[in-house]
């Protein structure tokens, strides 16, 4: 686990939040030059460096696109180090798998994956300080303890700051695993508290910390125009006319790869063909697009039509079983044959776009022998490896700097814009900032897959759920395998709880690129399954909460010690807590309703209740949403609450009217006027309650999103009696106001 102190952080690796680009002017400054600090550096391991003046520098290993890990991960180190958080400076770690392992932002995994490693890093650094003090003072190590940022010897009253001890401490051997005892939860000073985001001060002052803000010497600006019909490539373009425009430095065709890209994070070196326009500033490049005329070769392009995909999928979903069997447990045939009653429902969800607020950008400098890029990628390690493969360079020749991203939600998992920037830089022989427009971002996303569910439930005379069928219709680029984000998700309720279950899948061909969108797969499954469970309860005259509590079955942790598996004890606790908080069962005026949704994903058990009102014009007001969750221990209470509040807003935003439609292989929506994001006046009041437990912490970025849609749609049903089986709900005639 621990690595030698000699391999610790090098000063030049640091990109300090507070210093990065501080003097950024029209000429820009080198990020690396800015990162050099004058104070002496004493690093105890790759994560911990203590300055002689008392500042404690902690490296944040994983990209932060708004999920708060640049605060949460250093907090874990600081807790075990016993650092005074006020003295901590967070720096962004270099991208270096040898020292920092897998550095990515996805799957709500940052905290979960690094929990043991980072505690160990903090604890071993503390131990080195303690042993150093013991040697200097000639006292037994066992007589020493720490208080924030200092070592104490209670018998003599002697003390020394970490800063005074660190130089000698770096000479200590790194303690092995098992040589240090990690803190008990009851002794935490920092974890579980509300801590302000490490970047807050820079954010509120507009400091240059985002990908779009990066500037390096001699940098030029580029835009990249691709074929609206996804997968088309340029044949010819009026390049000379474009080059003659003011501010334009160059314009050229990138032949690229014909055909739509696949969402293959590890291997894809796809570069879509297009026309690069290079300029002396961003505006000149964007303006020149008005004059650009391109003749596209669309022979390999997508011909998707989203209404045709939908019609084929809905037709298939009407069948109880599909082409491929995914799961067959118990005797589902028998359960349906012997059922006292059967409830059926077909649910549908559309393509949606990520619409992270910062459109993609990347600064790249490609030379014959090396590439340096600055990117807000969620997978900077794959940016490095795919660039090496594309340019046939050794991995060591590729330097990737992580930079804060203005939102991610899965959009920055792919690195195609990084490759585009590197290709353009190579052609012009200069560092370049490639800036996608909002329209580029909406037209060339890896969209959330649409999904269609044919659901059937077999019920006993007493309304007990005895059989469950789910025929999932997914999009597939090859007609056989479900696209990323369109597949089956296992380990959940009710699939693993109901005794007789049949899950099957049918593919509908689609070439439109799809990928991971916040809580991929879970987000659409939750809507369909958890709405359908309410349908069942309603059809059999049972209270939804009581029905869910009973349907969860016996107390069981499906794979003990695997946090990623359902635990029905934790599930029932969050359902009980959220219904109590929302005063479930209380009388409401006509047109107003409460709705419940539960979902387990990303190792988080989350239940939500929404209170809505619906008027005669099918206008829906979401008044309040209560959330109860068991994520185990909480690292940063403020950060986790913020993620949950944001997930609720995101859920309402997506279900209201977010829909990507496709005609002749091209996306029809271009900007936010056609793809609305929820605004402040429509935002509900949100209550978040974490039922903290001693389980290790799991991630907070995603698990609160899936229950939002079913909770709201179930509330709409309770308010007005109409069942919504389509997302966005605008397609069923409803409007969130």
């Amino acid at each position, binding site marked *: 686990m621990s690595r030698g102190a000699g391999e610790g952080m090098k000063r030049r690796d640091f990109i300090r939040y507070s210093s990065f680009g501080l003097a950024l002017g029209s000429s820009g400054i080198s990020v690396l030059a800015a990162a050099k600090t004058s104070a002496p550096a004493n690093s105890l391991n790759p994560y911990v460096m203590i300055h002689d003046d008392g500042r404690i520098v902690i490296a944040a290993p994983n990209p932060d696109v708004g999920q708060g890990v640049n605060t949460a991960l250093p907090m874990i180190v600081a807790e075990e180090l016993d650092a005074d958080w006020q003295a901590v400076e967070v720096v962004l770690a270099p991208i270096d798998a040898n020292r920092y392992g897998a550095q990515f932002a996805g799957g709500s995994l940052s905290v979960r994956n690094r929990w043991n490693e980072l505690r160990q890093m903090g604890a071993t650094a503390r131990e080195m300080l303690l042993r150093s003090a013991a040697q200097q003072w000639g006292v037994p190590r066992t007589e020493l303890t720490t208080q924030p940022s200092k070592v104490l010897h209670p018998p003599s009253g002697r003390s020394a700051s970490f800063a005074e001890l660190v130089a000698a401490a770096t000479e200590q051997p790194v303690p092995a695993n098992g040589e240090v005892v990690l803190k008990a939860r009851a002794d935490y000073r920092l974890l579980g508290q*509300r801590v302000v985001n490490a970047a807050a001060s820079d954010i509120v002052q507009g400091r240059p910390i985002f990908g779009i803000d990066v500037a390096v010497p001699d940098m030029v600006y580029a835009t990249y125009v691709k074929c609206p019909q996804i997968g088309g490539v340029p044949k010819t373009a009026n390049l000379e006319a474009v080059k003659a425009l003011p501010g334009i430095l160059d314009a050229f065709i990138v032949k690229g790869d014909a055909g739509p890209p696949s969402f293959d994070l590890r291997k894809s070196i796809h570069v879509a063909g297009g026309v690069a326009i290079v300029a002396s500033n961003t505006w000149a490049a964007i*303006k020149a697009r008005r004059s650009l005329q391109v003749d596209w070769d669309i022979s390999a392009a997508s011909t998707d039509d989203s209404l045709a995909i939908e019609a084929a999928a809905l037709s298939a979903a009407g069948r109880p079983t599909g082409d491929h069997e995914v799961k067959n447990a118990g005797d589902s045939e028998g359960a349906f044959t012997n059922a006292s009653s059967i409830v059926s429902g077909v649910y549908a969800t559309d393509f949606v776009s990520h619409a992270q607020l910062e459109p993609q950008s990347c600064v790249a400098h490609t030379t014959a022998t090396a590439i340096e890029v600055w990117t807000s990628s969620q997978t900077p390690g794959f940016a490095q490896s795919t660039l090496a493969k594309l340019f046939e360079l050794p991995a060591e020749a590729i330097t990737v700097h992580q930079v804060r991203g203005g939102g991610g939600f899965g959009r920055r998992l792919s690195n195609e814009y990084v490759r585009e920037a590197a290709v353009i830089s190579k052609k012009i022989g200069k560092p370049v900032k490639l800036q996608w427009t909002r329209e580029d971002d909406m037209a060339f996303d890896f969209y959330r897959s649409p999904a269609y569910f044919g659901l059937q439930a077999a019920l006993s005379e007493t309304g007990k759920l005895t059989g469950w069928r789910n025929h999932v219709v997914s999009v597939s680029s090859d007609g056989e395998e479900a696209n990323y984000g369109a597949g089956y998700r296992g380990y959940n309720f009710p699939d693993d709880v109901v005794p007789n279950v049949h899950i099957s899948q049918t593919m509908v061909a689609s070439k439109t690129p799809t990928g991971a969108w916040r809580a991929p797969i879970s987000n659409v499954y939750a809507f369909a399954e958890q709405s359908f469970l309410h349908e069942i309860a309603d059809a059999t005259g049972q209270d939804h909460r009581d029905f869910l509590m009973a349907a969860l079955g016996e107390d069981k942790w499906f794979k003990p010690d695997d946090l990623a598996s359902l635990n029905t004890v934790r599930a029932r606790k969050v359902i009980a807590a959220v219904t109590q908080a929302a005063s479930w069962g209380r009388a409401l005026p006509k047109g107003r309703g409460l709705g419940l949704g539960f979902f387990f994903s990303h190792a988080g058990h989350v239940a939500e209740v929404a209170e809505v009102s619906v008027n005669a014009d099918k206008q829906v007001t979401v008044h309040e949403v209560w959330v109860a969750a068991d994520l185990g221990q909480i690292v940063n209470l403020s950060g986790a609450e913020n993620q949950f509040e944001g997930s609720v807003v995101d859920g309402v935003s997506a279900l209201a009217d977010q829909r990507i439609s496709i005609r002749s292989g091209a996306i029809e929506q271009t900007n936010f006027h056609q793809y609305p994001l929820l605004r402040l006046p429509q935002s509900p009041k949100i209550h978040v309650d974490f039922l903290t437990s001693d389980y290790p912490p799991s991630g907070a970025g995603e698990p609160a999103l899936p229950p939002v849609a079913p909770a709201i749609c179930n509330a709409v049903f309770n308010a007005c009696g109409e069942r919504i089986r389509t997302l966005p709900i605008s397609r069923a005639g409803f409007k969130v106001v």
Partner: protein
Amino acid sequence: MQLSVNGKAHELNDADPDMPLLWALRDLLGLVGAKYGCGVAQCGACTVWLDGAPVRSCQLPLAAISGREVTTIEGLGGDALHPVQEAWIAHDVAQCGYCQAGQIMSAAALLQRNPNPSSEDIEGAMAGNICRCGTYSRIVAAINTASKQLQGLSFYEVGQEATVSASDGEVSV
């Protein structure tokens, strides 16, 4: 074209008169606090002040604003943080933070003309600023805190009230 930005005069004679203020600030003057989000005045990430009023800088060509006074997030507080910026930190508003400079400029403009805004006033003033991360409840809480501070309550008193009212994300560490 002449432009005064945060009290400093700039000559932008070589710039394209069509260039939106946003890109002049970012690429020509190196002031990158105002952000590009949509380019069509839908999201508010580019909000700055023109002669003291909040505007979408992505839709303001330089030719239309020659000689006017621009204030950006970099110049909002002068040498210290503006009370709205302080409140944004105290409530730990930001997630990704990309929209927040625009949100703060809209909020500070609101409080300048209406130091004690109602909920409806806040909704009206902030409806043009999208937060994709969904930090709206904290934005409202921070505006209320800044409002109280601007009306003469000390930050400590405001903090106490916020802590007592609990649900608004007030931060203790």
